[in-house]
């Protein structure tokens, strides 16, 4: 299917822009993500026809329609399974899965978990707006406790699920978080995800302008972001804050936000980030504002586990290696007998 002999054109974002009108609400964070994706794809060294965008159902899940690539807008919650089938049939395709928090964590939570633990080489963008957009504003599995929505007029009584923690527990080999309007980090993270052999998961804080506006403003807005988030750089200490004078330390096994220079804290005390440490990633995934800054960037990367579709292909190739498969013999089975003649 793949034609590696074909030259790689120099693409521009518009080459990845389909002729379909974009139907999100004005001001929706999905627009920014779409722009970033269109910007990132030309950098990935792949021909246009090798990309497949797969989604479930929801506002975010309209994504494939807007990409001038192959695409499938499937059914609610099952996109990871469709994507798995595509990868199994053709591991050489570059499959991107874009869907919402309801889609991938409520009805689709199980498929999300299994595509991760299998390490299917799919890149997942979870557009997390902490709400059901398309169905007009019910609470989602990531909505905060007490949230008043159409379906929870007295406030939600569920503990929200933490997508990063879940991905880590599900053995996902690449776990990251970005913000819709931060094109730079998102594009860079997508490039890393594209290079990852297994399942790559990126949670995107996405603003739903209509039903959950400003939910992420504490993290996405210029003034708030420095104090409420921390950018992860492998090998670098977890320093944050407008004046870059704050940091995260581990005290008694638990993370704590500190100010460098106060209470005898020096830069050396600050936790150094190691993206290969899954336990550390779990710790960071569980840091929440306002007590602690929320991590942005790649939390965990473990590139050595083989991708599922490759392992599957290898088994088939191994089984075929001796070339002894004889179809007529197979159909004959171990024992035959003659009747007549």
């Amino acid at each position, binding site marked *: *299917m*793949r034609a590696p002999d*074909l030259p790689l054109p120099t693409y521009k974002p518009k080459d990845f822009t*389909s*002729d*379909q009108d974009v139907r999100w609400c004005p001001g929706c964070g999905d627009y920014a993500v779409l722009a970033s994706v269109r910007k990132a794809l030309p950098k990935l060294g792949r*021909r*246009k*026809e*090798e990309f*497949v*965008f*797969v989604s479930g*159902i929801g506002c975010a899940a309209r994504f*494939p*329609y807007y990409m*001038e*690539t*192959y*695409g*499938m*807008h*499937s*059914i609610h919650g*099952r996109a990871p*399974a*469709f*994507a*798995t*089938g*595509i*990868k*199994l*049939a*053709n591991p*050489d*395709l570059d499959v991107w899965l874009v869907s919402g928090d309801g889609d991938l964590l409520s009805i689709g939570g*199980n*498929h999300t978990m*299994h595509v991760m633990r299998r390490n299917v080489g799919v890149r997942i963008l979870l557009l997390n707006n902490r709400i059901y957009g398309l169905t007009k504003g019910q609470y989602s599995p990531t909505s905060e406790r007490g949230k008043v929505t159409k379906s929870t007029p007295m406030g939600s009584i569920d503990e929200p699920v933490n997508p990063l923690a879940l991905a880590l527990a599900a053995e996902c080999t690449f776990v990251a978080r970005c913000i819709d309007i931060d094109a730079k980090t998102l594009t860079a993270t997508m490039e890393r995800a594209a290079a990852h052999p297994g399942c790559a998961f990126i949670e995107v804080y996405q603003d739903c302008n209509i039903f959950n506006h400003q939910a992420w403003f504490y993290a996405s807005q210029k003034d708030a972001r420095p104090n409420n988030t921390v950018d992860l750089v492998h090998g670098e200490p977890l320093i944050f804050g407008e004046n870059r004078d704050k940091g995260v330390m581990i005290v008694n096994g638990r993370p704590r936000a500190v100010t460098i220079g106060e209470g005898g804290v020096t830069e050396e005390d600050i936790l150094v980030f190691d993206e290969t440490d899954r336990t550390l990633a779990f710790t960071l995934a569980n840091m929440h504002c306002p007590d602690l800054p929320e991590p942005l960037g790649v939390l965990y990367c473990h590139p050595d586990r083989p991708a599922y579709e490759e392992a*599957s292909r290898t088994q*088939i190739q*191994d089984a*075929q290696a*001796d070339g*002894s*498969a004889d*179809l*007529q013999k*197979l*159909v*004959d*089975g171990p*024992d*035959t*007998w*003659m*009747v*007549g*003649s």
Partner: protein
Amino acid sequence: MTHQLTERPPVSEPTPVETVAVRFAGDSGDGMQLAGGQFTSAAAIRGNDFATFPDYPAEIRAPRGTTFGVSGFQVHFAAKPIHTPGDAIDVLVAMNPAAFKMNVGDVRQGGMIIADEDEFTKVNLKKAGYGPEESPLADEILGQRYRIITVPLSRMVREALSESGQGVKEIDRCRNMFALGLVCWMYDRPLEPTINWLQSYFGDKKNRPEVADMNVTALKTGWAFGETTEAIPQRYAVAAAELPSGRYRKISGNEALVLGLVVAGKKAGKQVSYCGYPITPASDLLHGLANLKRFGVQTFQAEDEIAAVASAIGVSYAGGIGVTGTSGPGLALKGEALGLAVMLELPIVVVDVQRAGPATGMPTKTEQTDLLQAFYGRSGEAPCIVLAASSPSDCFETAIEAVRLATRAMCPAILLSDASIANGAEPWMVPDVSAIPEIEIIHPEALSDSDEPFEPYLRNEETGARRWAIPGTPGLEHRVGGLEKQDITGDVSYDGPNHQKMLALRAEKIAKLANVIPPMEVGGDVGAETLVLGWGGTAGAILSAVERMRGDGVQLAYAHLRHLNPFPSNLGEILGRYKRVIIPEINSGQLRMLIRGMFLVDARGVNVIQGRGFHVDELVEGIQNAMGDKS
């Protein structure tokens, strides 16, 4: 009642008989399926026609001696063509009281019961629900009704293997081979195939030659017991059947499905990816195909049935042959995704090995109750191709046909099998694989940027199918999805008239398949006023019943449907020819509902829903009643 082992002269030549049904019955752990399977092979090699009926509990290995742990394997073999595993049993081998109890009712009057007397202890009688002094072996009424042969089977096996150096547990595992040896002697079947199998399986594959030897000894001891005992004064011979000449093998329905799918993939020039989730009685499809990676087959055990069908759809979207298999409850779970496949117009094959429902029901038992689910078990109007296999070996061709039709119409095909044909076996004349026609699939070719935009929902005029453009092909980038599609462009459309048109186009392309499927053939009496119409796994029983009735002078025609959606193009015309149409089904009348609704024919049903195939007797009676009803 104990049996004295004494020398005696060899019994006279075996008496010829035409058909025999033997059932081996014992604990789940007693190896009855193995004994039955080997006996079948022995019958096959002698050129008999045969049909088998394994009947095992849902429990893996229920506590020994209990009635719910009884496992049975029935072999019907004959010197003439037969089509069912047989109604009443001629010989029952009962390895313990529970097996006796659960199976004695199926033995024909005057039939033989061979019982392991050593197992009829007070404890075991109690486990089976008999009183401690109530051994059925001593029951006079039973003794008059049946020929009960008590054999000190366990004791003799232990004696024969006393020097094997193995423990009692290991030794007792060979009891099934003793029973098999004895029955082989009775019916003059060769031991060699079994001996060869034991040696290759235990000796070579499991690397336990001592176990092979023990089993061989037990087998021979059983045979020798037959030679020496006087309790069985008679041997029987079942001559070879007059089957069409050719090379035959034994095959079960699930085996045939596996082979059919592999061959279909090769004939289509495509990789088959089977995406399944284990469920009785369909799991063997996954197992079977997982073992055939050397033929380029891929298998994927999904996390559930929804993921299984969704990944199969993904496979087909990417250009492979996506197949999923399940049983009824699993098909229910696949409904939503199947609706999507209908909308995407992608070819997948969904095998449903029907079992007794509703809900978990009786998961190891058979039933034909998913026909209407296959037709209507989705939201909106989402027609699929529906096919049903009629016998174990027929599964092979039906699988190929399913792939052929699905790829031709770009539409999901649901293939209905059932527990009895899935696990039952029969002789099958092995086809010449090279003679099976190719499955022609044409994908649209790459376009350059300057070409017109690609139109994924443009249709082939003849078939009505849209084009199957595969990701990776330059210039054919397109998006598919579950929202209603604009005709030709495939864009999202909320236009009312377009919706109605698309609904019609999706239905029509299935209807058009009627042009390429064979017309229905009618067998039986030309001038008959009554047509017996069947579908699926009841073919053999219906044929047997009709033949018996015709033998008794009743004028009957009969026909059997492999294609249910679409029906063969001549079905309506044929139905119109008969005064009466009788539809036997293992459900309460699902095909009947369709036939009545579509053709306004006052079809009557014969409906026995007891977790097993029809008995020919009851079917004859049912057809008779239905004929009476009408007149």
